[in-house]
């Protein structure tokens, strides 16, 4: 009785198309429960005017490669994107390319993790390097454009304001400004910091300078000693340097 009920239940599910045979040729232990393509899409009740979403119904398939490549040990891939080609592309193209590369990267990372899980070598791991490098170059190109614009408009390359300041030990360093909600004269935490030093510190500044000069002199003499030793070992170098 229970067996017949189960069979009819499964039959009903098969008719509605919820249960689907998973095409997991590459990873036999991994089963995919992909939603069948003909299930109705639930429309949202409210209007999404300002929300931009992809209308792709592909879903989880995009985390995996083309089924033809499943089980292959070598998957061929083309050249990566170079900075000189990316500089000729508009911002819109770069924006789209970024997301295409991101999805490819997610697919390759899934593949890498699954290969690790099954103790198998990942097919063509250079693809991941290529994608990461291309994404880095897109970021570089966009940063270059931003820096160029900022230089034109403000004359500064650095997005973050800063200045040279002394600390309480008399050392001079580049202070990067922080974004605060309140002005400096109301900021208790900021006012506790000391950007000046007392007169007693002058003696120690001199000592620090001495230390630095001594270190430089030591490094210079070490270089000279090394050069002499090299010239003893390779006599022709002495003749070359004279020329």
């Amino acid at each position, binding site marked *: 009785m229970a067996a017949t009920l189960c069979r009819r239940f499964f039959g009903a599910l098969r008719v509605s198309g919820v249960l689907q045979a998973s095409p997991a040729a590459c990873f036999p232990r991994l089963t995919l429960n992909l939603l069948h393509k003909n299930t109705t899409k639930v429309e949202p009740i409210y209007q999404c005017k300002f929300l931009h979403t992809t209308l792709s119904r592909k879903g989880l398939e995009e985390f995996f490669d083309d089924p033809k490549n499943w089980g292959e040990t070598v998957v061929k891939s083309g050249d990566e994107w170079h900075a000189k080609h990316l500089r000729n592309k508009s911002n819109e193209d*770069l924006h789209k390319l970024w997301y295409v590369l991101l999805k490819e990267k997610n697919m390759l990372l899934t593949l890498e993790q699954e290969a690790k899980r099954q103790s198998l070598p990942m097919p063509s791991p250079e693809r991941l390097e290529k994608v990461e490098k291309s994404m880095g170059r897109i970021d570089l190109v966009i940063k270059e454009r931003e820096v160029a614009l900022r230089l034109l408009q403000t004359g500064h390359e650095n997005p973050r304001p800063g200045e040279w300041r002394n600390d309480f030990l008399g050392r001079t360093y580049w202070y990067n400004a922080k974004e605060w909600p309140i002005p400096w004269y109301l900021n208790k935490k900021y006012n506790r910091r000391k950007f000046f030093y007392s007169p007693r510190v002058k003696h120690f500044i001199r000592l620090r300078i001495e230390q630095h000069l001594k270190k430089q002199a030591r490094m210079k003499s070490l270089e000279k000693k090394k050069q002499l030793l090299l010239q003893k070992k*390779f006599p022709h170098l002495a003749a070359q340097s004279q020329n």
Partner: protein
Amino acid sequence: MRLTTLLAMAARVKLPPDYRHGVYRPWTAAAKANNPPGRRRKKVFVEPISKEDWKVFRGDTVEILIGKDAGKQGMVNQVIRARNWVFVEGLNTHYCYIGKTADYPGTYIAREAPLLLRQVALVDPTDRKPTEVEWRYTEEGERVRVSLRTGRIIPAPVHQRRDGIIPEQWKDGPKDTSVDDALDRTYQPSLKIFEEEILELQGIVEMRRAKKSYWY
């Protein structure tokens, strides 16, 4: 420190200043076994040859001047610049057993020994004899190696890509961009920042105004 920076630091192999480079590359297991951290070996003096002066590359034909196989010509297999080493394919070999286990004696193979840069010379293509070579510039401005005896340009070896692709024989796959699309110039310089342009294209109108903040 950021996690990504930490991971990148761990991935990069940090070598001590007195590291002795061997036949195996520093990131390989064999090199790590031979040079565990804290191991200090006697210093080996390497003739300082600058990057610009280096003349021998992988794929070049060279002749060995000194050694067991003196007078023979071969193709350069591998170059280790840290020790000024050059490995010539099939020449200057010694024999050893590898893959030895308790019951298996191992495979008897010929292994190339490294040669110093001074012990090899580039071969002139005209008379196929070893020559002294110099870096010079052509009329077009290209930097080439010129043989001092005959004055002939020694062509650079064919550079093979690490992923094994030969650009002339390449056929685009489904995920590859076509050559025309890749070289198409769509950039229009404007005074808009990337973010502003994307907001405009997507039709997103930012009605929020940033609260006043102080930078110090």
